[in-house]
C-alpha cells in the first residue's frame, strides 16, 4: 500500500490532557503529524481535531482505532482529500517599499485570492486561504521581493458526506446505543472502516 495524505477528524470531549493523549498515539509509532488543528465543532462543548498525516490506509485505520480507544474520544473519521473540503490560511509579511515599487499588487491579490490585512509604512501583511499549492504559490510569487515572515495554519476540513454529529451524540448519550453508533459498523464494510 502506498502512503498518501489522509485527514483525520476526531470528535472529543473538551478535556485537559487529551491533546497529549492523541498526539502520543502518533509519536509512539514515529509518525510525523503534518498539521493538527483543534477547534470547537458544530456542537457546543464538543471539540474537533483535524489531523493531517501521510500514511498508508492500513496504518491510518489502526491509528483511528487507537484514537477512538481513548476514553474522551467520541469518534474518529479518516478521509482522503477528494472526500473533504479543506482550507489552510497563510500570512505573509513583506516590506511595503519593495511591494510598492516592484509588484503589481492588485494582480497579485487577484491571482491568489489574497488580501492585505495590514498596510504600514514599513511592512505589509497579506493573507490568503486555500490548498497547499495556493498558499505556496503566493509565497513563491513574493519571495523575490523578500518575505520577512511567513506562517501557515493547520488544515481545517469539512467532510463531504457528513451530516454532522448532532444525531450521533444523542445516541452516545444513551446507555444502550442505537443503530447509529453501532461502532462495529466497520465489520460490515471492512475496507471503509471509519468513513461516514
Amino acid at each position, binding site marked *: 500500500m502506498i502512503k498518501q495524505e489522509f485527514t483525520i477528524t476526531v470528535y*472529543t*470531549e*473538551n*478535556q*485537559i*490532557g487529551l491533546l*497529549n*493523549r492523541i498526539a*502520543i498515539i502518533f509519536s*509512539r509509532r514515529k509518525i510525523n503529524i503534518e498539521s493538527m488543528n483543534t477547534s470547537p465543532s458544530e456542537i457546543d*462543548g464538543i471539540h474537533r481535531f483535524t489531523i493531517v498525516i501521510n500514511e498508508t490506509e492500513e496504518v491510518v*485505520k*489502526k491509528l483511528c*482505532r*487507537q484514537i*477512538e*480507544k481513548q*476514553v*474522551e*474520544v*467520541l469518534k474518529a473519521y479518516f478521509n482522503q482529500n477528494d472526500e473533504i473540503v479543506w482550507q489552510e490560511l497563510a500570512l505573509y509579511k513583506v516590506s511595503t517599499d519593495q511591494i510598492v515599487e516592484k509588484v503589481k499588487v492588485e494582480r497579485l491579490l487577484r491571482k491568489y485570492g489574497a488580501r492585505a490585512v495590514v498596510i504600514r509604512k514599513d511592512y505589509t501583511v497579506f493573507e490568503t486561504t486555500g490548498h497547499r499549492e495556493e498558499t505556496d504559490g503566493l509565497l513563491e510569487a513574493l519571495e523575490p521581493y523578500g518575505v520577512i515572515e511567513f506562517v501557515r495554519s493547520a488544515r481545517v476540513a469539512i467532510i463531504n458526506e457528513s451530516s454532522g454529529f448532532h444525531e450521533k*451524540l444523542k445516541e*452516545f*448519550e444513551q*446507555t444502550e*446505543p442505537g443503530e447509529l*453508533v*453501532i*461502532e*462495529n459498523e*466497520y*465489520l460490515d464494510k471492512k475496507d471503509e472502516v471509519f468513513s461516514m
Partner: protein
Amino acid sequence: METLEIKKDNKSKAKQKTRKLSGSAALLEVFLSEKVETIFGYPGGAIMPIYDALYDYQQKLKHVLVRHEQGAIHAAQGYARASGKTGIVFATSGPGATNLVTGLADAMIDSTPLVCITGQVYAHLLGTDAFQETDVINITTPVTKWNYQITDATEIPNVLAKAFYLAASGRPGPVLIDITKNAQIQEFDFEEYIPCEHIRSYRPKPIVRKKYLEEAAKLINEAKKPFVIFGQGVMLGEAETEFKNFIEKSGIPAAWTILGMSAIPTDHPLAVGMLGMHGNYGPNVLTNECDILIAVGMRFDDRVTGRLDKYAKQAKVIHLDIDPAEIDKNVKTTVSIWGDCKETLPLLTQLVDKKSHTAWHQKFKDFQKQEDEKCIYPEMHPDTNVLSMGEVIDALNELTGGNAVLVTDVGQHQMVTCRYAKFNESKSNITSGGLGTMGFALPAAIGAKFGAPQREVIAIAGDGGFQMTLQELGTIMQSGLNVKIIVLNNQFLGMVRQWQELFNDRRYSFVDIQSPDFVELAKSYRIAGQKVTERSALKKALKDMLDSPEAYLLDIMVGKENNVFPMVPQGCSVSEIRLS
C-alpha cells in the same frame, strides 16, 4: 466535568444527605462505597492528608505498607489478578509517583484493573518545580487507560466514580488519579456517592451482532481442523464456564497464551497446552496447519505469533475480543466478533454443531509424544546430580495437587513454570506477561495472598528477578503474611544467558550474577527457609515449605546452563519451533 454522565433518576433516588468532609475523607468514603478492602501504599509529604484520614478508617480499610512504590503497584496487580477485583494503590508525589510507572505499564499491557492515587503538591505550586513535584499526568499518560488531576475536592466523588468504572469495565486497565494537597485538605459538602454507569464517549461493550456469530459458526461447522487459542480475556470476562461449554460442544482443541493459562483446568481433555516462544510443540506447529483459527480474548502478541507473515496463513481467522483496536491489529481476521466473550461465547455455542475431531486431536497427541521424548523427559530426568527447574515444578504439582496460585517473575523459571505447572482453578497463574517485568513475583504474590487469602500462594522467582524487589520481604514480615517463596537459583540471568549461548556464540556478557545467601537474608526478615542442592532433599523441602503456617523461602539450586525448550527463535515462524 461534562464528560461524567450520571443518570438523572439515580440522582433523585439518592438521599440528599450532605456531610462536611475533607477531600481525603471523601476519597475513603468512596472507597467504602466501592467495597474496597485493601490498599497497597507508601506515605509521603504530598499524600499525608489522605494518610491522616486513613488513620480513622483503619477498621474498615486494610492498608499494606510496602517497602517501595513499585512493590505497592505489583501487589495491587497480584491482588486484582487473584481476586478479579480492582487493585488500589497509594503513593506520594514526585518519586513516589514515578516509582509506579513500571507497574502501570505492566497493568496496561496485561489489562489489570487498578485505581492508583498519587499525592501532588498544592495546586498553586503546580509548574513551579516545587519539592517532589513531577508532571505525573503526562508521565503516566501512555501507560494508563485514563488519568486525571484533581485540584478541587468537590471533584473527588465524580472523578473517583469514573475511575472505578473505567478501571474495571470493558477491557480493564490502570487508572491514575493525582490529587493536589489542597484538594485533600479542602472541606466540602459530600453528598451520597453515586457510582458511574455510563460515560458518553466511552463504550465498554458493543452490541453483539448476530450476523457475525452466524458466519463464524458456519466456518466452524465446516472446519476439518479447527483450533481455539485463548487468552486472559476469558478470565477477565468471567467466561470460564461459557468457554468450556463452547470447546466441549464443538470438540475443538484449545491452547492458551501465558496469560490465558488456568482459565480451564490444565488437564482438561481438550487442552493442548501453551502457545508461543516456549509453548508446546503441537500448538505452535499446528497453528500453521489448522483450517480455522478461533482466537478468544487474546491479542496476538509477537511472542505468540513469531514471524507474522508466516503465521497461520492457511487458516481463516475468527477473532473474539472486547477491544475493537485489537481486531485486525496484528492478524487479519475473516470474521471478527467484537464483544464481551461472556455474551458472545454462549451465542456461538448455540450455533455450532457437536463434534469430536478425533483425527485432528490425534495430531496434537503425536506432537506431544515427540515433545515428551525430546524435551520433557530430559527435563524431568536430567543425567546429572543437579536439579532442573522442571523437576521442581513437577514435584510442586504433586504436593499442591494443582490447587495453588503460582506467581512467577520473568525469565527461564517463568517459562518452565508455565510449561509444567498444573492448575485446577481459574486465576491461578499470575505472571508479568506483556511487559516482562523482573521483580514482579514477590510483591504480586503478596497482593495475590490478600486477594485470595484462602488459597496457597507461591511466588516463584529467579535469582536475578528476586533481587529486584526483595525488600518486600519486609512487607511479608510486617503483615505476617503466609506467602511461600521459591527461588530457582541458576546463578545466572538465565534467559539472557540462554540467548547468548544460542545466538551470540556463548559470549556471556554480564549475565553472571552473584547473590546473597537468600536463606540468611530471609532469616533477617524472620522468614524461615532452607537451601536445596540435592535431588533427594527436594520433596521434603517443598513439603516443609507447604506445611509451614507462615511465610517460607526455598533457595533451590538448579542447573547453571540449562535451557528452556522448545523454543521459537525470534524472527522465526511458529512452525520452525526447535526442540533442542
